[in-house]
């Protein structure tokens, strides 16, 4: 039984590794994810925060859907061992300390997912003030992760 479990675990780990691919791929995927995220948050920021007169519900809803999709995509699967030193599109900015702070980051991710899901809901309502407020809450979860495990340039 124990042996089966061990084999299962090893196979499972191998499968996960194969799915995420080599470290460079992981770093590229996550950098792309955040860059795509940035495109969408910039739209929400422009239309709901900086220039509410340009608010376009359809575009903001689409952007909020994309933000929620990225948040729910299991980003932490892209942070394999050794991915703090590697290079994707550009050198990784992950602090090595990440690997000791995984639990804390996991919690931040849960917060990010919850706030992003809420943003998706609020965006659908079309209430610009509420979107602005919820957008701020999403931004806070980004910041707590940046402050914790992202290397400062």
């Amino acid at each position, binding site marked *: 039984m124990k042996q089966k479990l061990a084999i299962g675990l090893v196979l499972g780990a191998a499968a996960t590794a194969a799915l995420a691919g080599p470290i460079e791929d992981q770093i590229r995927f996550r950098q792309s994810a*955040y860059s795509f995220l*940035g495109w969408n*948050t*910039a739209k929400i*920021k422009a239309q709901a*925060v900086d220039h509410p007169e340009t608010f376009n519900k359809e575009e903001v809803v689409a952007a909020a859907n994309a933000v929620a999709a990225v948040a729910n995509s299991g980003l932490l699967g892209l942070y394999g061992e050794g991915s703090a030193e590697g290079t994707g599109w550009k050198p990784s900015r992950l602090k090595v300390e990440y690997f000791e702070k995984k639990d804390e980051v996991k919690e931040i991710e849960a917060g990010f997912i919850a706030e992003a899901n809420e943003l998706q809901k609020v965006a659908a309502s079309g209430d610009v003030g509420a979107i*602005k*407020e919820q*957008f*701020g*809450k999403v*931004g*806070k979860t*980004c*910041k*707590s992760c*940046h402050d914790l495990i992202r290397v*400062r*340039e």
Partner: protein
Amino acid sequence: MKVEVHVWDWPLRLFHWLLVLSVLGAYLTGKEGGDWTDWHARFGSAILGLLVFRLIWGFIGNTHARFSNFFPTVPRLFAYIKGDWHGVGHNPVGALAVLALLSVLLILVGSGLFANDDIAFEGPLYSLIDKDLSDKLSGWHIRAVNVLLILVAIHVTAIGFYQHVKKNDLIKPMLTGKKKLPGTLAPTAVASVGIARFVIGVLLSVSVVWYVWGGDPLKYLQPLAGIQSAQAGGKIQ
């Protein structure tokens, strides 16, 4: 015999306490992030305006506000250490702290103008430089906060030391402008504030902040300053 002397002019005191509030506000909102980032930018702009005012006031302000009056030159520092300094305004070591604080705040404001947080904030001058440089300046912006915290800690500790150990109250003079001094030093008291100078300082400070945020202060300043600046304004634009 001790005499009460007017040392700090009211624009300097106003500057000091507004700076305290703005720095505190900028620090807290910067830590908090999210929705508060807009307020961080507002406090930062206030600090920019205050610093510009202080730099101008360092040249056209009253006696003890002027840099030339308290600049910590080597002879002044040596005199202070030997106990031979008998000035009225900032003592030479205090002056070092003043200049250090102003410098680190200038670095913070300067880098903040070009910074981005990779979330939802771009400083008003962000678009003038490329992203890599902005990222670097954003990193230095955050590092400089630690230097600021150290300097503020030294500033506050030193004032506490003067207050309790040397029995020299530095806080009340920064509120009332008046210091109790030995009669022999009394003649160096400051004159009353030139209101025209104060208005010039404020107008220039507001203009800088406004300009940084994409405004066009020259358009409004030209009629105020008359023909001379109207000619210069044409060239600048």
